[in-house]
């Protein structure tokens, strides 16, 4: 039951990222629009570490069709974020388990 909810919610998230995100608005968002209007958009730079981003700008590389590229990026990203979030929480839970075993009540 618990995992049924998690799987259903994950399926909804992946469905939205794959099937809906390619049709999302491509207008600049609030911050970018203000930056354009107020003339500081050009102060933005791309960090050296981001020049080799695996999926820059939510377009999966090597796919000609923009919408397919974004859908694939959404699929990979949503699953990846789930995995990392789950992994972080899993490790924290393990840490908690072992510290409780050593010294009850010790939280760090």
């Amino acid at each position, binding site marked *: 039951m618990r995992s049924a*909810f*998690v799987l259903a919610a994950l399926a909804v998230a992946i469905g939205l990222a794959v099937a809906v995100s390619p049709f*999302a608005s491509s207008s600049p968002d609030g911050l970018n*629009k203000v930056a354009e209007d107020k003339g500081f958009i050009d102060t933005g730079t791309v960090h050296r570490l*981001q020049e080799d981003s695996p999926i820059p700008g939510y377009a999966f590389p090597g796919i000609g069709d923009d919408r397919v590229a974004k859908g694939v*990026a959404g699929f990979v*990203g949503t699953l990846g974020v789930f995995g990392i*979030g789950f992994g972080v929480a899993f490790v924290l839970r393990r840490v908690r388990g072992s510290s409780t075993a050593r010294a009850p009540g010790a939280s760090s």
Partner: protein
Amino acid sequence: MTVMALHIPDGFLSGEVAAVAAVGAIAAVLYALRVAERDLDEARVPLLGVCAAFIFAVQMLNFPVAGGTSGHLLGATLAAVLLGPWLACLALAVVITVQAFAFADGGITALGANVLNMGVLGALLAGFAIRALLPLLPRTRAAFLGVVAGVAWLAVMVGAAATSVQLALSDTVPLDVTLPAMLGVHALIGIGEAAITVAAVGAVLAARPDLIALGGVPAAEDRIQGVPA
């Protein structure tokens, strides 16, 4: 066409402002890790993952607001309702960090500011405001969702204001120029944030009310209360 970036890129903020914001974000995340060590139960391990994944996915769904502008979910209020304020900080930090490194969305030196503005400030505001307001209201679904909507809107406005202040402190653009513009557009984006947050919380409330960390179930509320100061 430039790379589509939705968060603060590098270059908008001065090094000092970015560093101070990063210290704030890191402090919040470190504290959240301690809270997580103590409070993370078996059920919330997958929930943290799926909450982060859902927020990532829905942040890709830019919706149009006035005048050739779009907005997207920030998700801090949604995360705070489902996970409590501190675990919500962790979920948002995961989302925004992945966006910066894997998707080139939001700067690397600006990562702390993005985590602070879109994650920590909203999650703590939402978590503690909802917790404070609920005892004053009738314990009905409508009252709960009403508070969630209002707080979701407010969290977006606080994030927009914080970004404006950081831009001003960085000498990028004066506060009296950006603040009205940022608040104006985010007042509309906040309505979208409130609608999406209410829809998602409403769906969880219908399917699994026990998963709502704040409000719905008294036992769950008690469990996440009382983080030692």
